[in-house]
């Protein structure tokens, strides 16, 4: 009896939370659009991409406890796959291919996104396989190297065959076409004028929701428990008969696939990819979102993404006028203040909430 009460109350709270979350998700771009125009909605689009990335990284770091400092590599793999399959770049490089495809290379998003997920998963296992015996710091260094290798490959793969177009990157990537609707153009829907950034927002939101759903389901499963067990004590997990090598590979593959999907969407959204988007800084930023939000706790990770994606933009937009109001003039470049506050926020959260802003309740009970 007491058990059933203990079980229902959190589920009811979770239901209410879920409804509020859905409402916020639905209305967010319109509120942001009112406050700061399309630029702020664009920021939300990026926040959603970060959510996909961070939830992917959360599987590797938060669940399986494998510190990955090169996670952005999988984002790059997805992005370059989308760019190559839906831009004129390959056709201009290989005339034979151009002759075979007179209408150009415009792969459907329905193919690109699953393919990006699969390819990134493959790369995840490629990274995972040689690192299975490594723990902690050593693993972090190897993954860091892997992230850099991918970026440097993209940067230099313009000779002898020009595949990635080197540091110049690949431009004019097709925008996403969904059911004949071009998401890059403002659409009239029931008399509403819906700009492109809103259309992308809702597409990204649907995919982010799918990834969240997958994460929730995986977390409360035999596989999710096995990951947590490996994180908590790898030797004890093995002694319980868990094939930790295979389970770690699985975590790498699934985490990477979410990153790859995010990357493909990113390339189509931007219309352009270059190696600069996939620097170590980005890996660190995604890791910061996971850690600051609450490692291993899905709502925490999402909150971390929203905070860290929105905070710099909000500070950038407001710091100028705040100074104007306080001192009558802009004393310090808002850009510098923005970085200062970003760093300060990280330090304060880690000092006062080491388990993250919104940790799992089990962690908080410590």
């Amino acid at each position, binding site marked *: 009896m007491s058990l059933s009460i*203990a079980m229902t109350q959190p589920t009811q709270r979770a239901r209410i939370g879920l409804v509020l979350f859905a409402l916020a998700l639905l209305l967010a771009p319109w509120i942001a659009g009112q406050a700061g125009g399309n630029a702020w909605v664009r920021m939300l689009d990026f926040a959603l991409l970060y959510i996909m990335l961070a939830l992917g990284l959360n599987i590797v770091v938060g669940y399986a406890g494998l510190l990955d400092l090169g996670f952005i590599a999988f984002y790059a793999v997805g992005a370059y796959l989308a760019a190559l399959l839906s831009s004129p770049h390959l056709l201009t490089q290989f005339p034979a291919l151009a002759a075979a495809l007179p209408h150009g290379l415009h792969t459907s998003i329905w193919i690109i996104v699953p393919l990006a997920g699969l390819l990134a998963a493959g790369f995840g296992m490629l990274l995972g396989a040689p690192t299975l015996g490594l723990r902690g710091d050593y693993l972090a260094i190897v993954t860091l190297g892997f992230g850099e290798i991918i970026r440097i490959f993209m940067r230099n793969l313009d000779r002898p065959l020009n595949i990635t177009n080197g540091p110049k990157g690949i431009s004019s990537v097709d925008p996403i076409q969904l059911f004949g609707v071009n998401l890059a153009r403002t659409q009239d829907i029931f008399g509403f004028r819906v700009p492109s950034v809103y259309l992308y927002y809702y597409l990204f939101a649907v995919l982010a929701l799918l990834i969240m759903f*997958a994460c929730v*389901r*995986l977390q409360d*499963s*035999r*596989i*999710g*428990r*096995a990951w*947590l*067990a490996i*994180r*908590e*004590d790898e*030797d*004890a*997990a*093995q*002694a*319980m*008969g*868990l*094939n*930790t090598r295979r389970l770690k590979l*699985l975590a790498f593959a*699934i985490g990477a696939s979410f990153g790859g999907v995010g990357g493909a969407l990113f390339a189509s959204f931007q219309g352009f990819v270059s190696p600069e988007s996939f620097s170590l800084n980005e890996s660190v930023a995604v890791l910061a979102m996971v850690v600051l939000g609450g490692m291993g706790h899905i709502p925490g990770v999402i909150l971390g993404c929203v905070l860290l994606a929105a905070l710099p933009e909000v500070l950038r937009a407001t710091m100028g006028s705040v100074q104007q109001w306080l001192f009558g003039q802009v004393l310090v470049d808002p850009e510098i203040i923005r970085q200062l506050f970003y760093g300060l926020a990280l330090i304060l959260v880690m000092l006062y909430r080491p388990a993250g802003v919104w940790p799992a309740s*089990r*962690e908080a*009970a*410590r």
Partner: protein
Amino acid sequence: MSALLQIEGVSKHFGGVNALSEVNLTIKAGQVYGLIGPNGAGKTTFFNVMTGLYRADAGRFALAGTPYEPSSVHKVAQAGIARTFQNIRLFNAMTVLENVMVGRHVRTRNGVWAALVRHRRARVEEADTRRIAQHWLDYVGIGELAERRADTLSYGHQRRLEIARALATEPKLLALDEPAAGMNAAEKLQLRDLLEKIRNDGRTLLLIEHDVKLVMGLCDRITVLDHGQVIAEGAPHDVRSNPAVIEAYLGGGVHG
């Protein structure tokens, strides 16, 4: 009674040190078997070799008549040897129930697809896992602590949880590495009751122990190791009066 675990001629050296030389051990089904010896005798090394943590230099291993190669820890566990650790090792941030559910991993099959789709078979298996895990918690007497975080339990309860987690794998052999270590007298008595209950339910136990009193009272047969060699093997009262054993425990000064 047939031999459940048969280990012959196990040797292991680290550099120039012979940690184990030609160790034999035969455990019959339903026995409580004790492996004792003074500090540094090679008990833990033997345990680690048997469970796949260290690779033996030589030796033949058979569990329930089937040879097994202790080449990796998880394969030994899958073959049917579950162990506990001398310094308790739980999945601290998980609940007590979840700890035991991890023990069910080897007896269940749900994969990624089952987790995502939660089809009927997956839901049935998950419910079974939960039910059986709760059963083992009740069995060791900490059923009401199921929703607590594992590291909030008292020492004695943590030990029970570790045993429940091992039992949940449905092992042929339950191997306990110094289960009484760090326990007070009352906790040792309770532990003894639990181990007797497990034995009476027909399970086979291997006990690696420092506490000679506990071993003598509980075990059907005992092997004594010293300097990596078997110096005595037999029933508790025979072993107790064996001069070589007395010498090993009290030091060479007795005769010299």
